[in-house]
């Protein structure tokens, strides 16, 4: 697939008579005219280019190619998706990928984005498909929140010197405990429900094996184990080689029930029922048959090459009591050994839904905001459905407290956590922990080109093509993930210390530690935080 030439013997024969060497039909001549409105241009500095063809070998979209006649590497910018792989690997720095400067006449309503989409759909007549999370310029509430720090009246704590605790337990907690104290010893009388222990309030979000490849799955599993956190299988089953990482695995049950069976349910430290995904609330998932190779087939327990269709709803859940039915079916199937999480997309009435989910018996509620990533989503859904995770989180945490059930379930927030400050803000708003997904992928090289659904990810992430998947060396990927979470952990400790806290539970829901800038009174009321200056 990395071969550039479109070799057709007939053409080749004709070329034999000419002085040129047949290299395949190139350029825009035979392409739809719409292709000319491409998004990126490749700039090759000929002073630097040595024609070593590294770019050609790296590009899975066949942008770069060797031109026998010219005896140099050429490129076809119309195919470029802006992944920057060639730029990153070019040993002489000869390549720069730029936004195509070609401009349409200014129109703040009909932006080029809309024009291009209409052209494409008029040409091909299908649903626009995208990858990753919502890129549109909606407000990012994380960026409107500022953190507190201690000055004089209470001391900041130096996390390099003093103990600093990030350990978090996810699961349902009783409202009160009973102890038996005898001879200076304390025994717990209350029986606790199962919990998931995390050394950092960070988990690797559900990304199925299939949507991303095995190398990254094993990297996540190993990193989670090393870090003492958990990763989530996503709806793709659990490869037999990964069962040994079970204590650090949340296994997911979604509508397609791929690879779901007794062993699977009992393999992890938690089960998550996926109702919705932030990137595509209300939409199912389609893993195209091309991505279902031997390993994926084995794991999902479907034949090689067949589409893996996850319906929009669970067909056994059409109401909240059905959710309860499934929650308890899973608890029965695992003999109540592991907590059950329910993941929903952040939508308009998320707070009420979350409250229902807790009452339905979920031990963890995971909310995925509209910035959450995906391997493939209809563009219109990705860009227009759902609400920001921050607002959903604030509303849910408050609602559960108002209803006196906050202890009954842990809250996990997902969808666009980009840095440790986002984590701290999420926890201050009321989350017990966060899921990071896109950040995991970025850590291993993703440049957010949003073409995951093509299965040709040049960074070897959202692809099962062996030639590409090997670009993710699991050892490197693991180290990067470990580094990322550790460094975020240090930063969280620094921020906590600055606030005068030495344990994460004193931050959780502590909205006094947040101040807002540039938000309306209504937004402040939803977030229940003071504006900066108050």
């Amino acid at each position, binding site marked *: 697939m990395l071969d550039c030439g479109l070799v057709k013997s007939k053409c080749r024969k004709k070329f034999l008579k000419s002085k040129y060497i047949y290299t395949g039909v190139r350029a825009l001549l035979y392409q739809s005219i719409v292709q000319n409105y491409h998004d990126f241009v490749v700039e090759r500095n000929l002073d630097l280019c040595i024609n070593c063809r590294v770019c050609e070998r790296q590009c899975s979209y066949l942008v770069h190619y060797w031109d026998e006649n010219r005896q140099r590497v050429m490129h076809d910018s119309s195919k470029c998706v802006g992944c920057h792989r060639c730029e990153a690997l070019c040993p002489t720095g000869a390549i720069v990928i730029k936004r195509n400067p070609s401009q349409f006449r200014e129109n703040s309503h009909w932006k080029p984005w809309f024009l291009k*989409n209409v052209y*494409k*759909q008029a040409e*091909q*007549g*299908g*649903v*626009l*498909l*995208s990858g990753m999370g919502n890129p549109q310029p909606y407000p990012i509430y994380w960026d409107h929140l500022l953190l507190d720090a201690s000055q004089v009246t209470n001391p900041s704590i130096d996390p390099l010197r003093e103990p600093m605790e990030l350990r978090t337990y996810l699961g349902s907690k009783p409202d009160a405990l009973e102890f038996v104290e005898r001879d200076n010893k304390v025994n717990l009388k209350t029986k606790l429900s199962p919990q998931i222990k995390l050394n950092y309030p960070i988990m690797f979000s559900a990304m199925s094996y299939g949507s991303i490849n095995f190398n990254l799955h094993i990297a996540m599993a190993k990193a989670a184990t090393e870090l003492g956190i958990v990763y989530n299988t996503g709806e793709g089953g659990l490869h037999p080689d990964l069962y040994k990482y079970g204590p650090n695995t949340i296994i997911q049950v979604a*509508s*397609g*029930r791929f690879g*779901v*069976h*007794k062993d699977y*349910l009992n393999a992890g430290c938690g089960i998550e029922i996926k109702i919705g995904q932030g990137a595509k609330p209300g939409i199912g998932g*389609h893993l*195209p*048959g091309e991505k279902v190779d031997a390993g994926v087939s084995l794991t999902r*327990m*479907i*034949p090689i*090459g*067949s*589409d893996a*269709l996850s*319906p929009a709803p669970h*067909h*056994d859940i059409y109401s909240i009591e059905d959710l309860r*039915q*499934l929650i*308890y*079916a899973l608890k*029965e*199937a*695992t*003999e109540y050994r592991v907590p059950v999480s329910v993941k929903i997309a952040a939508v308009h009435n998320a707070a009420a839904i979350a409250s229902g989910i807790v009452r339905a018996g979920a031990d963890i509620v995971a909310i995925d905001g509209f910035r959450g990533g995906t391997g*493939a989503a*209809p*563009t219109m859904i990705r860009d227009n459905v759902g609400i920001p995770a921050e607002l959903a989180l604030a509303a849910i945490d408050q609602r559960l407290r108002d209803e006196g059930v906050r202890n009954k379930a842990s809250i996990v927030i997902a969808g666009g956590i980009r840095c440790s400050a986002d984590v701290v803000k999420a926890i201050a708003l009321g989350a017990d922990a966060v899921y990071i997904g896109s950040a995991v992928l970025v850590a291993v090289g993703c440049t957010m080109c*949003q*073409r995951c*659904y*093509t299965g040709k990810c040049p960074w070897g992430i959202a692809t099962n093509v062996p030639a590409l998947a090997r670009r993710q060396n699991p050892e490197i990927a693991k180290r990067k993930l470990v580094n990322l979470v550790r460094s975020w952990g240090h930063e969280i400790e620094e921020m906590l210390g600055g606030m005068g806290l030495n344990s994460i539970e004193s931050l959780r829901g502590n909205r006094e530690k947040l101040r807002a800038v540039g938000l309306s009174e209504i937004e402040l009321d939803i977030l229940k935080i003071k504006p900066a200056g108050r």
Partner: protein
Amino acid sequence: MTKKIVIDAKGIYYKELNQQIRKFIQKGYTDFELLNVSGQRYIATGLEGDYNFLIKGVAGQDTAAFMRGPYLRIEGNAQDGLGNTMDAGKIVVTGMAGDVLGYAMRGGEIYVRGDVGYRVGIHMKAYQDKLPVIVIGGKAGDFLGEYMAGGILIVLGMFSQDKIAPITGRSLATGIHGGIIYIRDGVPDTQLSFNLKVEEIDEQDSVLIHKYVSNFASELGLDAEEIMDARFIRIRPKSHRPYGNLYVPN
């Protein structure tokens, strides 16, 4: 060696009932007769091994979910979600069964004498030597075999309480991309969703149907030959990629 226990389930909450069953299993019991079952959920859910259950009464929601191995005979009706994501085993229902029967079932066999509800056999899928089979003696509700990816569904339409209803409901096999549905005496075109190939059965099909109809008949004390004595049609997907061309890269 079988060790049998009779449990009167009357008034026992499902959690307790299932806990009891698990305890008896730990003690080495393999055969269970559950009397006066009245909607208790999750019986045999997540259970693995060679066990026999005779359930008298109404089996509750998600009975035999994620089950791998046991044999269940339900003398009475079964509610919704019977055999949900079931892996292996056999279930016989002498009455009727509710909605979402055999959801995402990957293996095992389910035989229901009477009618079944809506969305039966949704997302059934076969894998390697695993082949889920559902035989329905009565009629089925709408959306039968939706998203089916593998396995066999046989609808006989013979032992139905509803004389007027069509043998299956609307949008039969929507989104099907694998597996086979056999229907005795055929089905009106209006019930069919897109992407279906409706054909007469061939010799191979006939052998297959006969095998499962015989099981059905012997489990339920019926005459297999009489059931076989009719025209069967076969429904399969036209393509394994029903939604393959739906999208435009953006």
